[in-house]
């Protein structure tokens, strides 16, 4: 069986979100670099994989996928369905709840911050501090909810690690490359949860590959 392919630049937290899932699932995979400098992501070849001209894209045989969270789910379904608690109605619902929270609460506030600080300068722009400040206000409310949740159980979806926890790794690594990781300081359970996640080999590998520049 040919290894599955993940297309993108590993500096992208959306690409490494998938890489973490692939590592955790023990999948045989390769990362195919897509070069932003030569606008390869907008080339016909890449548009055939991701019609929105973004990364990541993914290939598993004749199945072509895009959108990092859809790719991560496929990887779990295929190699490690217990990461989604597939087959258990209540537990899979809790995984889904916290997958959505990651996407719509956590990432929604975090993405603009890490984009402005880490990516904007690389693209030749400047960091828009107003955007950073507005989103920091939103982001600050999130760990409070996570702290309450993690008081009740070890991981977000329950006392079991799931894709909901893992989907936080790549972007949170970027948070720690900004001056704003202190938003987590007031929340001991969140910090402990993060310390556990970041120690995992998949997270360590992501950290090495991402080397976000500040």
């Amino acid at each position, binding site marked *: 069986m040919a290894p599955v392919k993940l297309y993108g630049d590993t500096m992208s937290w959306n690409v490494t979100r998938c890489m973490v899932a692939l590592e955790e699932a023990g999948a045989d995979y390769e990362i195919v670099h897509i070069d932003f400098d030569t606008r390869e992501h907008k080339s016909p070849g890449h548009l055939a994989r991701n*019609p*929105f001209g973004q990364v990541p894209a993914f290939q598993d045989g004749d*199945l072509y*996928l*895009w*959108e990092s*969270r*859809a790719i991560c*789910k*496929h990887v779990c*379904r*295929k190699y490690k369905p217990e990461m989604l608690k*597939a087959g258990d*109605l*209540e537990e*899979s*619902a809790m995984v*889904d*709840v916290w*997958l*959505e*929270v990651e*996407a*719509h*609460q956590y990432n929604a506030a975090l993405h603009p911050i890490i984009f402005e600080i880490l990516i904007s300068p690389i693209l030749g722009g400047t960091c828009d501090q107003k955007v950073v400040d507005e989103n920091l206000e939103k982001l600050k*409310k999130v760990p409070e*909810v996570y702290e*309450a*949740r993690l008081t009740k159980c070890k991981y977000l979806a329950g006392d079991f690690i799931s894709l909901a926890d893992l989907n936080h790794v790549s972007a949170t690594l970027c948070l720690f490359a900004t001056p704003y990781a202190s938003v987590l300081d007031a929340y001991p359970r969140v910090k402990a949860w993060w310390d556990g996640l970041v120690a995992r080999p998949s997270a360590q590998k992501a950290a090495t590959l991402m080397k976000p520049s500040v």
Partner: protein
Amino acid sequence: MAPVKVFGPAMSTNVTRVLVCLEEVGAEYEVVHLDYQAKEHKSPPFGQIPAFQDGDVVLFESRAIARYVLRKYKSADADLLREGNLKEVAMVDVWTEVEAHQYYPAISPVVYECLINPIMRGVPTNQKAVDEALEKFRKVLDIYEARLSKSTYLAGDFLSFADLNHFTYTYYFMATPHAAVFDSYPHVKGWWERIMSRPYVKKLAANMLIKAP
């Protein structure tokens, strides 16, 4: 079996997302209206609606609630997630993400500026925001047109959760002055007409009225 409960106003976009799925699977449900003024909606962790209860199971986040409903009430006639088929479920997941991260950000400013702001909030339409959103939205529709030229629905030749996720905002968009944008995309228009012909649409639409408070 007691009816499941959805908490929130029936006209809320994320509540309707859940109701569409409940209707598709023919589940028994009740909508428990939460009073925005009394801040009753601040109860689930992030203080947002919808919230959901099925016996001991309490959920929030509309897409998570919807998936739970589609799984629980799955039948031979109603398999909107396709979790038994690795390729099909992957395509459902892809186009569900596309709705959240590409379609919704382009279409929602038009709905907010043309309907919600002026009617519900007394805030005049920001035409610049509408024009920018429409430009983005047309590029998204280009991609949808290409996709729907190849398959009847987004994930394949079967109606799925991915299509249903588009219902609410598209329905509201059609009530703005910009509905004719869809005329340039015949396959998208055909797809929308197929969704609108689902048997429960009139029932849901009766509650989907954006009106002044």
